[in-house]
């Protein structure tokens, strides 16, 4: 068993009386794709928000590379090497694809409080931005405004931005949502390529995609971990079938 890159211990988030996430303890191993699935309202996005710092947990802790990152703000979490995509695609719509990736690459500089030199002299950032655009198949759209892209392309652009930040761990919140078949296949192939070198936490509703990409799967129901296991273990689990995959469909 490889070492855990990210770990949660007793992680909980309450909204008033509602326990969106309760007592989730999980280990995400380095170099693996770990999918978190569950029915709508199971607390998947909330869980991701706790990991990325968008929300503060009510209880429990988050550990990244054996360091507690509980309660850090999203910018600090990102600088530690954790990049995330959002359920509703989140890019700079007024900027071009290239500029989107540029600013993402720039986020890796120790500080951008640099006022004098023109930014466009930084050919290293330009190269990094172009590289991530190429990896996501968007090089031809380089100078198009993000607002001119299709829904699927915007998703790819957001992934390109995250790659430009050179994260060790990527958090994906339903990267395939609302995509057509072709676009989905492209993004699945892209996720596979990313997974060759990096660790991924994937929230996704498309079960075929999850079963084909993920190494491990956790099933979340009502904010609690129902089961964690390999793809075949989850596919064979009776409890999971009953709770989520729909036992009545079985012959």
């Amino acid at each position: 068993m490889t070492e855990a890159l990210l770990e949660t211990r007793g992680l909980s988030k309450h909204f008033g009386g509602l326990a969106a996430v309760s007592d989730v303890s999980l280990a995400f191993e380095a170099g693996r794709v770990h999918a978190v699935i569950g029915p709508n309202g199971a607390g998947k996005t909330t869980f991701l928000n706790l990991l990325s710092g968008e929300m503060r947990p009510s209880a429990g802790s988050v550990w990244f590379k054996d360091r507690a990152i509980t309660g850090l703000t999203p910018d600090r979490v990102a600088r530690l090497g954790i990049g995330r995509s959002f359920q509703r695609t989140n890019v700079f719509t007024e900027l071009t694809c290239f500029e989107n990736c540029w600013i993402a690459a720039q986020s890796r500089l120790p500080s951008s409080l640099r006022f004098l030199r023109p930014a466009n002299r930084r050919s290293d950032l330009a190269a990094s931005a172009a590289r991530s655009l190429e990896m996501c198949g968007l090089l031809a759209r380089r100078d198009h405004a993000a607002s001119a892209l299709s829904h699927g392309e915007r998703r790819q652009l957001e992934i390109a931005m995250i790659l430009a930040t050179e994260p060790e761990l990527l958090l994906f919140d339903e990267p395939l949502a609302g995509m057509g078949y072709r676009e989905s296949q492209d993004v699945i192939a892209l996720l596979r390529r990313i997974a060759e070198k990096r660790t991924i936490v994937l929230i996704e509703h498309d079960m075929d995609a999850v079963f084909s990409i993920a190494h491990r799967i956790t099933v979340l129901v009502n904010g609690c971990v129902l089961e964690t296991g390999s793809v075949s273990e989850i596919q064979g689990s009776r409890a999971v079938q009953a709770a989520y995959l729909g036992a009545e469909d079985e012959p």
Partner: protein
Amino acid sequence: MRPLSRPLLVLLLVIVALLVAFPQLAERYYVQLATKMMIMGIFAMSLDLLVGYTRLVSLGHAAFFGLAGYALAVLQRDLGLVSLWTTLPLTLGICALVALLVGALAIRTSGIYFIMVTLAIAQMLYYFANDTRALGGSDGMFIGAKPSAEVFGLELFDLKNRVTFYYFALGALVASFFLARMVLASLFGRVIDAIRCNEPRTRALGFTTWRYKLAMFAIAGMLAGLAGYIGAAQDGIVNPAYLSWHQSGQALVIVILGGMGTLYGPVVGAFVLIALEDVAAGITEHWLLFIGVFVIAVVLLLPRGIASLPIVEMLGRLRRGGTPPPRPIPEAGDD
């Protein structure tokens, strides 16, 4: 921050050339009026850095305009500093420092709350100046001598001369414009662009966005201080009106009138508004009514300000090749 298109650059250069020639052609009164316009232009441009480029709508920007005036008056009266080379850097430093403090409070809020916090802090300064005897209360303070530009006994230029003072203000205006453009074209400027477009996304990428907003607030405060310094030096007096919300509000009107997010728009706006005030006040005592109608007309017909006049737009869109692209490609695309 896009590079200025060549026709627009030529237009701006022509305007600067006209401004250089102006004192040779015009009467004394108009030289002083044009100086006022340029001072207001610097002030409005500094506010544009916040409103147009960072989407921080401040209704208390006069705090730094007035602060600079009082700083100059106090430095001169209490410390006996008369040299431009000491009072100007000190004043700008004080303004930047106070802007950092004010910004640290105000930046925590956004939208309407940011407007209210900046307004409240500016009003506090206003009443502080108004009620402090040492600062002359509502009468304000005299600034007996124009800052002297002496270096080792050699007088480089004489600000007591109105025409020289005019050129000093013109130099400050041009320098402010290029300083602002330099800042906006830097790595820092890229982050400001990103914050304006989508602040949560910028934060999720790893930028501690409040630091950048605060830095911009300090830069804008310092530039407003430059305007206030020159303004108070020209008037020879500084009073609480320098700090008043009228002053902040007028700058905001000028930014919107001229076209925010352009830098040159607010400068043009300052010239137009002050010229119009001067003309209208000469015709009728109900001149404010004319100004009101004019402002409403511009906002209705040119929602993006005077800088969006079809002719200016056209100049701005023309590229070196001559064909307008579907969307102007920012400088990053050029390298």
